[in-house]
């Protein structure tokens, strides 16, 4: 049975390899093959990977330990959902997932009707060339269907910290984001090859760019939310190399989505859009694979294999050098000289593009500096979070300013005084709110006040520009996606700053029956219990929370002792209130009498996630609305 599956899966992978070669024929001007249409071949390509992916899922569900991958990463007693997430919780499986999304995007694009036949052929060809590279890598260096000759009774299990419903969906979402940019990359290469980077190109690319960006944002947010409640360190972002690796493509992708809009509206910034598209995909590749290659030292590092890292570096080098060579050859042909006024929206967007790239450089240097000193001076070091805070804060202040200003500027020419005059009510009300908040909370740090003031203006001015308030009804305007995402960003920044200022934390050595206090909250430590579950034993503490005599709910922080593999995890217990989260983590009891508990008050966490959700929804709305508009244009 196992041998049959192994045989079928490998044949399917080879089938995909063959179809990819057929699809890439358009790049080499071999056109005499017309048996099947592009979308039909893409369908075969997609189905071959889909079926082999289902085979791998089947192997994990049936716990077939004749397969190395299942043996190393699964266990017969694991709940079904974690057998499933075990499929992509390891290098080989995640690689297959990556390829699955790659062929899915290729297939979807081959079905789309938004571009000309020739354009579609070349894009699919570029994409297929990439698919070829990855499938070859999978077959040669990380085949998920390798068989062992032992008869193992049970598997080694999946790291319990990864046994979490959120972490089961985090990699697929993040990967859809990363891989989405492969299509943008292929579109850019096609644009460069055909010298057609213009309004039409932007209209074709826009929904894909926004969709990929939304998924990438959601993927990062899910990872961050997971770290917030699972790691139990009280934070949601640690400037860890692995987190930075996903933030870098996000920063360049954020610059890219704005450029695509400019390109669509004004037919300008062609070269810069191409640079960003190539950069974003390169950073996505690096982000997805250097993480697993072991090059980056991080709290998230999993078992690694340097050989694979080398393959990815070579792949990255080929992609970067060939695409920038192509760019250097063609950039003169795609650029159209345009004159635009210095006080137009172009300028605003360009400035914020540069600010995003500055943040990218800050993050890049912070991530790479330790690697460089280790290689050059054999000196290990880490970069503290302070570095990021100090470097990024001034950039964010400028960024917020231009985020407020740019949408108010017209594409032609604008008068600054007129804009200020139009915004006077918003400015005055935000100034008043900021002033009152400052007085009420004794806030005297000028940077914090400035950020709060600017993000308040951003929230209100964005919301009011996306909605039109008539006396009886609210009209949603066409830029609703943009205004929602911008307002979401304002809310996010507001929450980040307030959270940083007002977070509190305290550690107690507590006995059962004692009452603990933090700020105005009283924690009543009631009981402690031991329990045996299916795949772990647990120690649970019971606490109830009250504030000013009002009961707010119960905490059940927990320590879990897993046996396969032997690991201990703490489950944090969080009570979400509208304005702040209260958070309890317990420690492995060291003695009989007392237990260490860490209490956190994290204000504005809900608001922070609300901001993030608005950003993601804004991206999705823009992706969908654009498509609709285009269809309408087509019919006309």
């Amino acid at each position, binding site marked *: 049975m196992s041998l049959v599956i192994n045989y079928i899966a490998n044949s399917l992978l080879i089938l995909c390899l063959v179809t990819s070669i057929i699809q890439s024929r358009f790049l080499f001007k071999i056109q005499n093959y017309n048996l099947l249409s592009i979308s039909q071949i893409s369908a075969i390509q997609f189905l071959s990977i889909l079926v082999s992916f289902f085979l791998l899922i089947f192997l994990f569900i049936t716990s077939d330990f004749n397969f190395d991958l299942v043996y190393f990463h699964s266990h017969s007693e694991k709940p079904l959902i974690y057998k499933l997430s075990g499929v992509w919780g390891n290098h080989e499986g995640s690689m297959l997932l990556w390829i699955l999304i790659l062929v899915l995007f290729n297939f979807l694009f081959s079905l789309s009707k938004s571009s000309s036949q020739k354009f579609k052929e070349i894009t699919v060809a570029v994409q297929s060339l990439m698919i070829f590279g990855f499938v070859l890598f999978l077959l040669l260096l990380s085949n998920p269907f390798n068989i062992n000759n032992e008869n193992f009774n049970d598997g080694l299990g999946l790291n319990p910290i990864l046994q979490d419903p959120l972490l089961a969906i985090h990699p697929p979402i993040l990967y859809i984001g990363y891989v989405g940019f492969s299509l943008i990359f292929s579109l850019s290469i096609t644009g460069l090859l055909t010298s057609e980077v213009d309004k039409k190109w932007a209209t074709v690319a826009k929904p894909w760019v926004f969709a990929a960006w939304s998924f990438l944002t959601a993927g990062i947010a899910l990872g961050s939310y997971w770290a917030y409640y699972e790691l139990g360190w009280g934070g949601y972002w640690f400037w860890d190399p692995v987190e930075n690796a996903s933030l870098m493509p996000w920063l360049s992708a954020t610059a890219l989505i704005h450029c695509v809009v400019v390109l669509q509206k004004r037919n300008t910034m062609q070269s810069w859009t191409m640079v960003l598209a190539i950069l974003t995909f390169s950073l996505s590749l690096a982000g997805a694979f250097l993480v697993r290659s072991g090059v980056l030292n991080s709290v998230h590092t999993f078992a690694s294999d340097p050989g694979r890292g080398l393959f990815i570096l070579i792949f990255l080098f080929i992609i970067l050098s060939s695409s920038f060579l192509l760019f250097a050859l063609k950039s003169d042909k795609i650029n159209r000289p345009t004159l635009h006024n210095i006080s137009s929206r172009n300028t605003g967007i360009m400035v914020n593009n540069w600010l995003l790239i500055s943040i990218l450089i800050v993050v890049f240097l912070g991530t790479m500096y330790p690697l460089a000193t280790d290689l050059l001076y054999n000196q290990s070091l880490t970069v503290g979070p302070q570095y990021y805070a100090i470097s990024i804060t001034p950039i964010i202040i400028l960024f917020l300013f231009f985020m407020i200003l740019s949408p108010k500027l017209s594409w032609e020419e604008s008068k600054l005084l007129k804009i200020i005059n139009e915004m006077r009510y918003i400015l005055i009300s935000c100034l008043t709110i900021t002033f009152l908040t400052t007085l009420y909370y004794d806030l005297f740090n000028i940077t914090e006040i400035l950020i709060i003031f600017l993000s308040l203006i951003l929230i209100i001015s964005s919301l009011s520009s996306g909605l039109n308030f008539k006396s009886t009804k609210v009209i949603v305007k066409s830029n609703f996606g943009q205004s929602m995402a911008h307002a979401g960003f304002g809310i996010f920044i507001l929450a980040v700053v307030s959270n940083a200022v007002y977070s509190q934390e305290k550690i107690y*050595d507590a006995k059962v029956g004692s009452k603990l206090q933090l700020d105005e909250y009283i924690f009543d430590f009631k009981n402690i219990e031991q329990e045996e579950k299916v795949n772990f034993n647990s120690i649970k503490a019971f606490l109830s929370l009250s504030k000013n005599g009002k009961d707010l709910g119960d905490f059940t922080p927990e320590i879990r002792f897993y046996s396969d593999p032997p690991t201990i995890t*703490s489950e944090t217990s969080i009570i979400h209130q509208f304005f702040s989260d209260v958070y309890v983590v317990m420690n492995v009891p060291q003695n009989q009498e*007392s237990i260490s508990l860490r209490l956190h008050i994290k204000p504005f966490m809900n608001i922070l996630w609300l901001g993030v959700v608005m950003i993601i929804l804004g991206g999705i709305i823009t992706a969908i609305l654009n498509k609709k508009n285009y269809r309408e244009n087509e019919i006309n």
Partner: protein
Amino acid sequence: MTDTVKNRLIKFLVSLIIFGIAILIIVYNLRDNIVYFYSPSEIIENNQTGSQIVRLGGLVESKSVVSDGDSIFHFKITDGQEQISVKYQGILPNLFAEEKGVVVEGIYMNDGRFIANKVLAKHDENYMPPEVIKSLKETGKWQE
């Protein structure tokens, strides 16, 4: 030299200078915020005492972990040659165990003790921080 080429050259140089200055500022800021990593031997050799926050990594020596209540822990970190006593108040990460790799962050005191304010956790129970592997290899205590 034609005007367009001249124009481009000027633009290029100006952006290079601005870019260079920006990088300098960032790197300067970076150097103030880096945390060095040492093994017990290195920290004794360099005599890194004082107020600077550093990281110390190695193996937790067996039978060295003592708790004296109030979440205060004492333990020793060794690289096979030297050992350093560490005092830490807080919650130990779940993967903290004797004879396993550990990285602590804090201040190395004049009296040779290390006051840690962070004990860093890792995801994987078999995972060993690369710095620890490196320093163990240097002292010949590392077995594949």
